């Protein structure tokens, strides 16, 4: 049964309980103690040791429901998207990255050889190699917890249900209802990011999708992510066209030289 996350950023209060719960359950080390000066974000990005990351966006514009304030502070708990077309999985030459029975994308650490092809294959910049063991790491969608019929640690810890875990079909229904509710409350900017293939053909939809109130770039998300292999067909085609063209040019050149000799 495909399961995943629906992360509703309008409910996020930036408490970072998801980050901490994730690190504790997965026993991940800290990223070091660095004050960044970037709002309240000191862990900066998803990487080999941070599998949930809360982004803080200070924005000189109100959320549509807060017309009185000229300012807003957007928060988003970012995570691996577990794409339906997963660039990392498709790039993995060893078969270490697999699609599980929950439809999530999982890196088997005992098979990963640390080649790093997956890192360049992710259109979101999620998967990362740990410099100490050289292996690729990212969110497992708590594969171990799911096997034991428990929800992922981040969703369990989220106090406001900004992170909702469940079957994808249910989550999509809930998300659609939430959008309708928010539009009714005047938050006209609310929309879903990556909820299905139609809205995000490059990934064919995300198993961890989001509700946003600003352009994806505002949250450091790509506006039109595409799994690299998706580009393979057109690439081959254009390569074929180019090759033919070059061939034709070569023939032409030879012909003209020969003609010149005449």
């Amino acid at each position, binding site marked *: 049964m495909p399961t995943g996350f629906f992360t509703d950023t309008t409910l996020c209060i930036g408490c970072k309980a998801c980050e901490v719960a994730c690190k504790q359950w997965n026993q991940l080390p800290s990223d070091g103690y660095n*004050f960044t000066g970037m709002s309240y974000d000191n862990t900066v990005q998803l990487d080999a040791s941070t599998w949930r990351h809360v982004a803080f966006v200070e924005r000189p514009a109100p959320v549509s429901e807060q017309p*009185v*304030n000229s300012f807003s502070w957007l928060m988003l708990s970012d995570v691996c998207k577990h794409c339906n077309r997963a660039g990392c999985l498709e790039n993995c030459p060893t078969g270490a990255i697999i699609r599980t029975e929950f439809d999530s994308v999982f890196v088997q650490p005992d098979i990963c050889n640390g080649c790093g092809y997956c890192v360049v294959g992710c259109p979101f910049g999620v998967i990362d190699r740990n410099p100490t063991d050289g292996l690729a790491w990212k969110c497992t969608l708590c594969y171990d917890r799911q096997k034991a019929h428990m929800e992922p640690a981040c969703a369990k810890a989220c106090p406001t249900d900004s992170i909702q875990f469940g079957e994808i079909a249910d989550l999509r229904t809930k998300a659609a209802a939430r959008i309708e509710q928010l539009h009714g409350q005047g938050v006209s900017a609310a929309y879903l990011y990556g909820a299905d293939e139609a809205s995000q053909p490059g990934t064919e939809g995300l198993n961890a999708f989001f509700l946003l109130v600003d352009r994806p770039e505002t949250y450091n998300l790509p506006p039109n992510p595409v799994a690299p292999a998706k580009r393979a067909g057109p690439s081959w085609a254009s390569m074929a066209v180019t090759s033919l063209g070059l061939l034709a040019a070569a023939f032409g050149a030879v012909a003209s030289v020969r003609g010149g000799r005449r």
Partner: protein
Amino acid sequence: MAECHPVGFQWVMEAKRRGAKIIHVDPRFTRTSAVADLHVPIRAGSDIAFLGGIVRHILETGRYFHDYVVTFTNAPAIITDEFRDTEDLDGLFSGWDSDKNQYDPKSWAYEGVEPGQSGTTHEQSTGEPLSERAQMQHKHRDETLQHPRCVFQILKRHYSRYTPEMVEETCGVPQDLFLQVAETLIQNSGRERTSAFCYAVGWTQHSVGAQYIRTATIIQQLLGNMGRPGGGILALRGHASIQGSTDIPTLYNLLPGYLAMPKAKKDVNFAKYLENNHAKGGWWTEFPKYIVSLLKAWYGEHATRENDWCYDYLPLLTGDHSHMTTYAAMADGLVKGYFIVGENPVVGSMNGGFQRAAMRKLEWLVVRDFQLIETAEFWKSSPENERGEVSSEDVQTEVFFFPAAAHTEKDGTFTNTQRLLQWHHQAVEPPGDCRSDLDFVYDLGQRLKALYLSSNDPKDLAIQNLTWDAKTSDDVLREINGWTVADRAPVEGYTKLKDDGSTACGCWIYSGCYKDGVNQTARRKPASEQDWVAAEWAWSWPMNRRILYNRASADAEGRPWSDRKRYVWWDDAHHKWTGFDVPDIIADRPPSYRPAEDANGLDTIGGTDAFMMNADGKSWIFAPKGLQDGPLPTHYEPQESVMRNPIYGQQCDPSRMEWRRRENPYHKAWADPAYPYLITTYRLTEHHTAGGMSRWLQWLAELQPEMFCEVSPEIAAEKGLHNGGWATISTARAVIEARVLVTERIKPLRIRGRLLHQIGLPYHWGSKGLVRGDSANELIAFVGDPNVSIQESKAFTANIEPGRRGRGRGPIAGTQEGESGQWRDQPPARFKKPGKHGVVTARNISGEET
């Protein structure tokens, strides 16, 4: 609330999802503001003016909940003709005694009522209902609310100058924004709707903190938002069980269940103690049952009627023993040894330099904590040590550190803001030598008993005769619940307690938590299996009642104010109160019941006396006694302010507690040129208060790894501060450094055309732990609210400069000239003399109470 209580905030988000409007009033734009419908930036320290403005707006527009106000509040009560308001005396109430620096509240009384005994100093009345126990049935009432001396008219006059213009001038809140808040509150109150206030230490940590909350209670009374579902005032406490440690107090002036601590000069024997605390009307007529049962719990078979239930074993209060007073006494060499359990005062409270200087005078210090916190290592890792002013070899204090077990490593309860006792089970064994506080205290008690076993000194009977057999948390909860002495059967609640020695009870308000021999606090019936009040989830005091004063959810005749908001009501057919919750009124007392003149005991409680802990059964808009700084909340500036009080000549709360001494210098009362900026301090979600629970954990430490200050782009430009750079912040007490976070979330306010800058300082860091930094609280002065002696850390003045502070010897507390008399409160009659706060010091050895 989202910042400091993210788990509780889920219910705010739930309410928002159901259509509730969330308003957030805070100097900063925080994580709460981010999801609120409206954020209102306010000048730190000006909330009474803001809330007082709302009171005035409600009264001026006539949209108070008339029937509720007349039925349940003391608005109709007529006050003595000696009373003078701050309107008459430019910021003072009648009864100010400039020799004693305190009020005599006699003139604040109800007309025709002998004021009786009243606490005139902090330690005599703080936090206890003593002042509410005298007979106060106000016979002189005007239910038309027109009498010029009735509370309603006094209230109108008192707040008449708190206009939207004045709010703007005082708080920096534009008038239209202010009116939007007031209107939203009014529109969401009344028969069909209710509004709630949530506050935390942003309201309490001021020299007028208690009055901040009083102003909110006045709004809630006028709008009819008390005792009704969705209403109320919620104190979001600083720790998971601070409510519990007020109920079963860690406070020096209370016994469990808000029974008064005996006072040395007044409560000389049990008869006198009963006389001073036993009320003639209202629920406190039951007082003897609670104190006798408590003494029976403590002294078992040794407590008999003949020996006054061992009352004489109790220590008697000789003065104020609150935190700041005790530390000041410690600095004077009057405190020999000290226990600090689960607290990190040199980081978490005020003027750390002074506190460490005081601790260096101790002979011994016991610290129980998870980590070797700054307080435990004050002798070797302090700013004074770093600067080379103090050498650890010179500190003679012997420090005993005991590692403590965390809440996951022991059984017990947390009591939350809703008075809900929730049991938590031990999940893992504590590591190494870590032990629970209960283990420690039990063992300590046994050792003391062994030590005094063969003593013949009568004073040691207090230890010899003490029952000390509660070894587990379960034993403790059973004793708290109480039992009948004969068979140790749990009592079902405090209504079963007796004053004849046949019952024992450790805390009367918690009685019933072990009803039927079942740990009621451990109940976890899911919401889906019970109604929306969820009475079978854990247990709330008193009597598992979820909303206090819920009698007020029905009108004078006992009918719900509206169908939508019905909660408890009078069932005439069965002649009893019924509803979703346990009714907060005597179960079979009809709404029409009025006590006779000669009524006694519980018969004095009328059918509309929803607030029966007050002797008159009414909620108090006007507090005729019990407060040190006036019967009505009044806007006073913080001890150190950026401006003159715009409303009154009286600058600060006249009764505030000051410590005028070299180690605790004050700035000028307003506009001190050396300290021109307004500071507020606060917590972040990522850390827990003074950091003992978070700075040693890598997963939390990495989230907020350094001390920082939050400043607006405007002040950054003005002072040359760079985002990610360093700033040095100074007061007359200390100089600290912090990384700079420039953010639009801190907006300068515009007051009288001038920009007012506020600087935000989180206070979590110290010299120990995985992540370190200077402590914001080094900057804060010893200044206290006169009612509860809390420090003023949420609004004070300081200077900020770019760059890091010096590392060597430099200006430290007490060496700077910070204040000058003529700048302080004017005129001289209101000059506040240095208080001794009841402590018998070397210089005050005659022992007179101050």
